[in-house]
């Protein structure tokens, strides 16, 4: 593996991943802060959102870690689910954190919610990032599974089939959750009566 490409934290990440792979679940706890840092580093290089179809954006975020993980896959499926959920959650955290900061500084956003082709209106307003974060937290209280599914879909771009595989549920379950969640999010984030976004910030 190419250690030179990665920063000083990479050795610890590798070590922790292999420990996790050898079944030491507590290694995951120590891994998470390192993961945040690393992902954050990468995320800082994103500019405006990509055109639909450019999945490399999300790939960049988790690709490096996935490579290492894939060579130390823990036998316990629960952990793989956990890993992907963590990555999605991390992206959400990074974007939310960024939005909060920019709001406080009264500056424009540099990173936005990745484009999800079945919820294309999501992210067209700069306020969406923070609103989405709040909404997802509320959703998690009502239906934790749905919130997880939505997170994977929006922040990692996982297809329904992939999400089903990660969470060990059936694809129809995922589809249903997404359908309802989309409507619910629309209600939360677009409560106004107007159906045109004429006051959108330029994307």
């Amino acid at each position: 593996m190419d250690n030179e490409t990665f920063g000083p934290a990479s050795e610890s990440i590798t070590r922790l991943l292999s420990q996790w792979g050898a079944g030491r679940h507590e290694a995951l706890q120590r891994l998470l802060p390192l993961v945040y840092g690393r992902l954050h580093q990468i995320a800082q290089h994103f500019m405006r959102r990509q055109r639909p179809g450019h999945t490399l954006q999300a790939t960049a975020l988790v690709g490096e870690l996935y490579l290492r993980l894939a060579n130390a896959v823990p036998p316990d499926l629960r952990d793989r689910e956990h890993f992907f959920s963590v990555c999605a959650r991390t992206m959400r955290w990074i974007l939310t954190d960024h939005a909060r900061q920019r709001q406080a500084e009264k500056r424009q956003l540099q990173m936005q919610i990745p484009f999800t082709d079945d919820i294309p209106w999501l992210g067209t307003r700069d306020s969406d990032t923070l609103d989405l974060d709040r909404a997802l937290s509320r959703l998690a209280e009502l239906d934790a599974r749905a919130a997880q599914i939505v997170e994977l879909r929006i922040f990692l771009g996982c297809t329904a089939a992939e999400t089903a595989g990660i969470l060990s549920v059936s694809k129809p379950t995922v589809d249903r959750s997404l359908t309802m969640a989309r409507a619910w999010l629309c209600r939360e984030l677009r409560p106004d009566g107007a159906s045109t976004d004429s006051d959108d910030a330029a994307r």
Partner: protein
Amino acid sequence: MPPAELEWQRVAELFHAAREMSPSLRDAWLDAQTGGEAATRDEVRSLLAAERKHEGLSAQAACTPAEPPPPPARLSERFGPYKTERLLGQGGMGAVYLARRVDGQFDQVVALKVMAAQLADAEFLKRFHTERQVLASLNHANITRLLDGGVSSAGDPYLVMEYVDGVPLDRYCDDLKLGVEARLNLFLDVCEAVDFAHRSLILHRDLKPGNILVTAESTVKLLDFGTASLMAADASVTGMDTRMLTPRYASPEQMRGERSAVAGDVFSLGVVLYELLTGAWPFGTPGSVISALQRIKGDAAPTRPAAAITDRAAGLRSASPDRLRRLLAGDLSAIVLKALEHDPSRRFGSVRQLVDDLGNFLNGLPVLARKQTAVYRAGKFLRRHLVAAGTAAAFVIAVTVAGIVAVHEARTARAEALKSEQVSLFLTDMLSSAGRFSFDPQKYTVLQMLEAADGRLEKGPKGDPATEAVLRRSLASSYYALHRNDRATFHLDRAIATFRAMDDTPELAEALRMRSLVSENQGQYDAAAAFLEEALMLVQRLGVDASPVTVFRIKSALAQTFSFNMNRHLDRARGLYQEAIGLANRDPAIPRIELAATMAKWGGLLLEEGKDREAEAVLMGALETGRSDNPGGLWEFDPLYELSVIRGRRNDQAGAKEAARQMVDVSVRAVGVDSSNTAQATMTWARYAAQTGELPAAVSGVLQAMPIIERSYPSPSLVLWHSARNAARVMRLAGRYAEAERYARESLAVALAAKLPAADPRTANSWDELGQTLCDKRQFPEGIRALEQAEAIYIQAGGTWLEHAATKRRQISEWRRQADSSR
């Protein structure tokens, strides 16, 4: 479940049911279902309304462009002698405009690519200028020329290129419904152009149909050659510029952010070719993150071209689906798949080779790609052994692990052990690239795999005795790496018995050497030496048939045994060291780090014999040699320690401190700050640091390291004695007498508990430290008594220690005088 969740579940059920209904029935049904629960009913209706709104918004979003239109100022803007007229397209990094020359020189229409100013910094601009000149020299009929470039007055870097009026390659071929042969010919034009650029050492890095235009005259024109790197603002941190690469055509190594190479362009060409021939993407549906990740990792194999054909695709290629499938099976398929290999080294080495093979295909000649594939599939070396195919998997594993062990052996210091998780990681890595086996590495531990291989060896066909013996040896080395000495011995003994029954063979030498290692591990030093002696005689008989590395290892190992473990045949040890080192100096095949380790051992021997000067030279040589291979590795620990001792003896305090400091560095890096190894190194360093005036640092080093030492080396360990004495000295020099006294007493206690011989100077050293501390504290009667104890023992020890005795005598007189005068 809390009420809110229950409610949610119910709402969800109703929601999903209701939306399937026709609108006219919906409301009534909903009313009926919810009865008196108005809140629930309203909630469902509100969500249904929200869904409609969502659909409305989605439809709108589909019409809005995903990118903002360029600020109007960009049009009719001046860039050098050019003025932009209209937007041609927009990429990740910037926009491309149609522009016209307006400085009156001549009429010229160009394509002008602009990059936003804020993305360019000084570093970038410098590179931009240099690379631009390189690209401008690329002169080929099928490559759009880079005409000019610069930075506008507004500060925006821009490139001026030949304007091409053409259509992307894939669309061109589909529009004209070109058949396979016509498409191949166009593709060959593309390849020739790419190959030309490669020969000028320019990579494209972003080949895709969008960058390959075809004019109305059927001329192919490649765009954006090398501009992928030219326009990349900052590829450094992640190693990849996520805005530039088109994932659909990017090679796995490009997606991982590794440096581009010819192989990357070959891959991209492979994807283009695949799509030209089949109308499909080789890796299924261009999906999301997970599939991209699988591609990066190499888990996604391309679909066989023939299997990817659709009826529609066949129509666009003016052929029937059956005919197309036949055309794309066999040789053509092999060529495309070779270009798409996950491992870059398995692809065509150059675009020229791809062109040649396509040429072979078109001329009905045998195709190299096909042959390669066949060799690859059959090429697993174990197939050549006389072992049934079913057990091949198990033995690949065994031999693979043995290979890992061999590499690891060269890099391991005495203290390190090979952990089974590490082996597992290596193994999974290697197996994943080696193909499919009946073992799923995700399900078995290495040990289990070994045991399975073991079982099969006992029960299944073994092939001829020699092969069996080789396999046993491989298994043994794997077991040894995992500290299963019993199984290692079991297999080695059988392998050795077999080899002994044959004529002299190098395999026996290796087996004997390995067997001796196991014996040594088990503390059976005599047996270890016996095996090595036999091995030595064998390699002498073998002469040139013995591998130099094996000979070196045997001689080194035997030398060590003679100097450290056995009845000290120092002459033989010395001779063997010199022979081994001489051999390594002549033969670069012997790893430098092994040579360094051997030199260090020899240096240690010289040190013990009191030949300081010689030892120092050898040790410095060892460090230099080893550092050329593995600088900063844990192997440096022992030689550095010995160097510090030599320099300390010479009274080169600064030099000793430096060596000790490097020891600490090496240890921290290899085993961490909290390890006992590091603590020992720290104590050694602290002593010299204190003696060269770095008192605060030395004190904190002691405070940090001593608890670890005390924990790891309880009395009567001599390591504790040594460290405690150093600690005492450091504290005394720092004026912290209470602690100095405590450590001095600790070292004394250890010396006494260790039951050292009566005249052992180490006891004297402890008395010495204690005495000096007490005297510094002006606790005279006791202090002087301690010094006298030290003196007595030094005298008994004799030799060079008499000098110490004399020093003590002087100190005692001085302190006596001070004690008397203060009374």
